[in-house]
């Protein structure tokens, strides 16, 4: 491995230079979607678990199992119809970054792509959080904490949440891995100038070096995320953390 990804066949320039801007754009897209998804999923999941079998929980459940695994392009185009073309016209339907300006000066183009990715990730992740929170809340140690006379808030955040974290972390890893694929279709829907669009273009031009480079990057995301998760899981589980000593 030399770090040299070769020369693009169609654009006749080095792959690294060709992909620099798209990689940055996609990174922003993925990170923004991941952060919003994770925060939203934890908040919704914990709230639903704490209000188990009450109205909020039922509404949450209805939302979550309706939207789990609905294809991204379906969600994306529904959002376009709702907010960009037909029902309301408040957001751009396509994500164009004019030449010569950076992605940060056009934040409105991120709204719909990020919303699409969040809508496809949150149902899965939030259900996972809810499930592991409920498991923790039904545990013996939570009952014991109640019998000590602790406040419900402390029980939720100090006793249940830390123990519900491990499944949530593994879920986050799955979601990040999934996002790496999700951006391909979502970028194509919005014409977003990222590596997803670049990949589809490269495929149609049979531009092998570019395809190779992008696939390598996507696989790297998976490997790094999983490695990082494994380490994190050990870190938040005292039983594993203290195993060596």
């Amino acid at each position: 491995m030399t770090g040299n990804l070769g020369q693009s066949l169609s654009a006749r320039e080095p792959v690294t230079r060709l992909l620099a801007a798209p990689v940055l754009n996609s990174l922003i897209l993925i990170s923004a979607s991941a952060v919003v998804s994770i925060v939203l999923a934890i908040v919704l999941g914990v709230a639903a678990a704490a209000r188990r079998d009450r109205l909020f929980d039922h509404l949450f459940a209805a939302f979550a199992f309706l939207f789990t695994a609905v294809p991204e392009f379906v969600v994306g185009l529904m959002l376009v119809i709702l907010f960009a073309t037909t029902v309301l016209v408040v957001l751009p339907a396509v994500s164009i970054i004019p030449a010569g300006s950076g992605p940060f000066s056009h934040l409105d183009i991120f709204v719909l792509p990020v919303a699409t990715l969040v809508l496809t990730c949150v149902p899965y992740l939030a259900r996972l959080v809810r499930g592991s929170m409920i498991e923790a809340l039904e545990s013996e140690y939570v009952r014991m904490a109640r019998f000590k006379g602790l406040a419900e808030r402390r029980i939720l955040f100090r006793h249940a949440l830390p123990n519900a974290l491990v499944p949530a972390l593994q879920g986050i890893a799955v979601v990040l891995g999934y996002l790496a694929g999700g951006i391909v279709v979502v970028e194509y829907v919005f014409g977003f100038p990222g590596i997803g669009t670049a990949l589809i273009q490269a495929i149609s031009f049979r531009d092998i070096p570019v395809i190779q480079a992008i696939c390598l990057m996507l696989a790297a995301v998976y490997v790094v995320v999983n490695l990082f998760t494994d380490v994190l899981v050990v870190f938040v589980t005292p039983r594993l953390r203290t195993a060596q000593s």
Partner: protein
Amino acid sequence: MSLDAVSSSSRLGPMRTRPVWVQSLQRSLRTRQMQAGLVLTIAIVLLAIFGPLFAAHSDSAFVGIPFSAPSGSAPLGTDFLGRDVLSRVLDGGRSVVMLSLAATALGVALGVIVGLLAGYSRSVLDDLLMGASDIVLAFPQIVLVLLFVSILGPKLWLIVLVVALSHSPRVARLARSVTLELINREFVESAVLIGIPRRRILRQEILPNLTTPLLVEFGLRLTWSIGIIAGLSFLGYGIQPPNADWGLMINENRQGLTLQVWSVAAPILCVFLFTIGTNLMTEGLSRTLVGIDGRGGER
């Protein structure tokens, strides 16, 4: 001598002797999710299979100017070439329904075999199979499928095969983890002890315990298949024009979204309802899933 057996069967009333997974299915039929999901899914499947019989126009007939609004002859308007949207929606579901069912069935079957073998062998074979599936897993499903289909051409059998392949490591992991949990159970040990051959242990002791989790997994994978296969034709690598297909229609007509929303909204609605239907069925099933220990499933 205790006779606790006698009383316990009277406690349970008439004996139920159907296999456990059948009982799970029956119980799930009583959930609202399963009922709603079943209605939706069956409706979409019927639409896809029998739709062509009711299409007023051929899928390639021009009935008006492009992107014209709904009218008497074209109730959902026309598409970017002036063809009848309703007729094309009726024509365009068959492939996605058939392909996703076939790909899911093949993928789950493949995954089960790999997972069972890997979990039970606990040897070089396990490392090998899991290593291979890790490589497949490292590529996002849609990217993997896209690569193969773009290189080898959009042949239907290839789409089925590649989607199945992309599912199988995920199913295999589930099957493997259940198998690993089971092989240290005492009932498996007891079969090992009297010397029952490995193949029979897999078939008789382990496989029956996989049926219920696999039913749920099938539902989940089916939803994903729909997304991938529809997505593939949305990207232009599935059914080729001028044939009608929901994913393809969405892409063809989306530049006219501001002019004629139905040419996009109708196929989108079909795919959306189909996935919601399979989602609801999966949900209903997993609610009544009986765990390995006879405990209730998902909360």
